[in-house]
């Protein structure tokens, strides 16, 4: 883990972790560690999921009925708890995604051009 990368990491806004988890699960069932890795990879190491937040978030999503969980076996033969997106979760994802896009666009407009690259 390069120190450089750690400095570039972004602290996740409250609530965005849920969105990311849901998005990750679109590609199929995944266990907690897999989700954390996937988020890190697809954000090209800029988002590092704090595991202390990951599991409570998974717990929360499960309670909302957006994901469901089942114990299974990973591809290298380890027992793991796999999370799957439910239909309800899929709907939630699409509504949250569009909300997020609107929010980002709005904030972008407020901040104005030029600053965004920083």
């Amino acid at each position, binding site marked *: 883990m390069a120190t450089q990368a750690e400095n570039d990491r972004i602290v996740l806004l409250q609530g965005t972790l849920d969105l990311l988890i849901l998005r990750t699960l679109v590609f199929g069932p995944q266990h907690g*560690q897999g989700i954390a890795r996937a988020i890190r990879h697809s954000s090209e190491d800029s988002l590092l999921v*704090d*595991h202390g937040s990951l*599991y409570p978030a998974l*717990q929360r999503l499960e309670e909302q009925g957006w994901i469901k969980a089942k114990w299974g076996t990973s591809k*290298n033969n*380890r027992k*793991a708890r796999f999370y799957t997106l439910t239909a309800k979760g899929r709907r939630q994802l699409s509504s949250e995604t569009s909300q997020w896009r609107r929010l980002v666009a709005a904030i972008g407009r407020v901040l104005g051009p030029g600053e965004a690259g920083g």
Partner: protein
Amino acid sequence: MFWRKRKQSDFQAEIQSHIELEADDLTEEGSALAEAKQNARREFGNVGQAEERFYESNRWIWLEQLGQDLRYGLRTLRHNPGFTSVAVLSLALGIGANTAVFSLVDAVVLKSLPVRAPNELRVLQWVRQGDDQINHSGYNTDDAQTGQRVSGSFSYSAYKMFRQNVPQLSDVVAYAWNEFTVTANGASEIAYGQFVSGDYFVGLGAQPFIGRPLLPDDDAPGRPRAAVLTYRYWETRFGLDPGVIGKEILVNRVPVTVVGVMQPAFQGVYPGRSLDFFVPMAMDAEVGPRWYSLTEPDSWWVQVFGRLRPGASERAAEAALQATLGHANEAFAPNWKTPAVLLRPGARGVGNLRARSFDTLRIVICVVALVLLIACLNLANLLVARSAARRREIAVRLSIGAGTGRLIRQLVTESLLLAGAGGAVGLLIAYPLLTILLRLISRSEALGIDARIDIRALGFTIGASLLAGLLFGTLPAWRATRVSLTPALKEGTLGATGSPRQRLNRVLVSAQVALSLLLLVGAALFLRTLMQLSAVDLGFQAERLLTFGTDAKQSGYHGQRLIDVYTRLERKIAAIPGVESVALSEEGLMQNSESDAGVYVPGGKLQQNSSMLLYCSASFLPTMRIPILLGRNFAAADEHVAVVNQRFVDQFLSNANPIGQQFYLGDGKPPKPGQEPIRVVGVARNAHYTGVREDLGSIAYIPYTSQKEDPYHMTFAIRTVLPPLSIANAVRRAVAEIDSAIPVADVKTEEQQIAENIGKERLFAGLVSAFGVVAALLAAIGLYGVMAYSVARRTVELGIRLALGAHRGNVQWMVLRQSLWVVFFGLAVGIPAALALTHLIEKTLFGVKPTDTVSFVAAAVLMAIVGAIAAWIPARRASRVDPITALRCE
């Protein structure tokens, strides 16, 4: 959701698996295994913290906190045994009383019949405007307002046609009541039975307890005669002996084999009326009364039930029924307008008795509900006072970070604990209470109800306890947590008197006083009613009279033989040592039953009206000690004579000498040719006939031997010189010696009969007084608690007053005055409320107006005295405060 929560261990396994997976990935990326594992663990961060977060987010914590609350609550309650026992006992009384009454109401009014698909059941009734020419028996009521006659009786032939011509109904079954003489185990008794159609049990889907039910095969002429018993009859008459199956009993002297016993809960389709056994309809030909005809279309006597087929229209069924009834009537009354046939819901059985008992029960329900309400108020009051005492504890807990929600939950948990304990103890006392209630009620009515503390009653108790707990717990809990911390923590015993907390206490006590007053006024009114009733001059002497009922007709005696056997019985009983004389009458006195007939008096003041009749023996008036004021008593051999009472003379006869005046009995119209008049030979003093509460009416006493028809049944009244019940067995033996098939029923003294006659009033007087006293005591406890607490808080102030020279008497009066204001406010609300409500019980009162001043004053004075005593103790304590001690302790 709540129960599907994950276990802590499951979560630990998930974290473990995460770390292993991460290590795998890292190894793949090239780290050495040991290093990879360490990295993975570091990567994950603080395992313990993650676990803790998981634990917090989990709802198991809720359960664990509940456990904490319960433990804490139990500890608190255990440390205040006085408070706890008063609270639990008062609640137990309220909840127990309500549970007992609920079981009763449930059995009489709410429960569905224990049969298959009770909601499909429909009762057939017909409705007609005004008079009808049909000779029908059964339950009919004339609606006084609409003039409609409603009846459930049909002819047997119409019933058979209903079965075939109404496709909307399935399982059309019929039954009819009758009184029978049953001889079994060597003794004869009167029993209530029903003729039922063959498919009655199969159609209803009622199951036998042992043996088999009656089946369609049994209901045909020439089949072996079979009977099915109710569980109650099996219990009372055969001592639950399973050997009863296959046993032969005599029903009206005809041998019948017992084939089964029904389930305890099944009491026929007319709950509330006692029922002993069932026999097939076909047996009516042999043992039924003359007017129960299986063939005559103008004899309407069977009650009909059916199931509405799923999806069938009720209207269409009614139309089909009416058309069928029209066809059935054509045969005998072509010009008669067919009455409208109605289907009524039958899930809870038939019967006006349900509605009638409910009127009685309604008063009881109100009383017990009031008691529970008072108990709740009392508890709310105690809790408010206690939460004031716990202010400091609560303030400390709030200031070290306890959440308000958590605290409220803690306090409500304590209340629910109390309520739960109250409910549990209440359930214990509900059982004896129900037994007492049933005994009290069955004194005035023969009840065949299956009332018990069952699962439904248990559900009711739990519900009532929860409701009570929330009712008295929530408000005090909410108030308790609204403490402003600094003053509460700093506060000593010196407090302001008029704080809102104390005001709430006083309002609660006043409300208790008001509600208790309602009960006390009710108690006073019922007690006065009872006093008035016992003061009624019945006109005959009820002491030392033994009575029993019988009917030799059902044992095979008719016409002159019937009169002969009654005469022999009379002589035989009169010869028993200790018997002074024996009287026979068709109706017994004080039994709420009477014979009436139309009277036509040529040349009388009032020529035609109806009068009460009493067919009796010549010995009746002397035995009852009803004096003859004028003329003479009739003799045993007299025909066409009567002794009439003073009311009869006043109402009917002309002003000339009543002796020798004549009247005609019948429909109240001028006599038919050849009809013999009845001659008045004597005038008797007015005496009561049907009951204590009756308005004296006109009565004609007529020799029973001169009646054209056989007497319906016969009541023997025996005047004794010994205590009446001591000769009961000698009487039974005497009857059995003449003919053991003649039943001896309802052996009791006339005084018992009178007590039964006013049973309802006695029930109310007893119940309302008992609960009224309890309510007043609870209010007194509430008042005492509030005043004692207030005095304790004001010790310093009182000490200063005394130190400055206040008289002890003044101090005492000051405290007393406050309490009396609380009582006064309660009365000021309670008296108008009682005035507004007592008219609801007007029908049950006797000789007392619902606004009776004496009752109101007595209740208010009693309440004030109880209140004053409760307040006097803290007031005395206040006046005994030692100023020096009081000032030092601050």
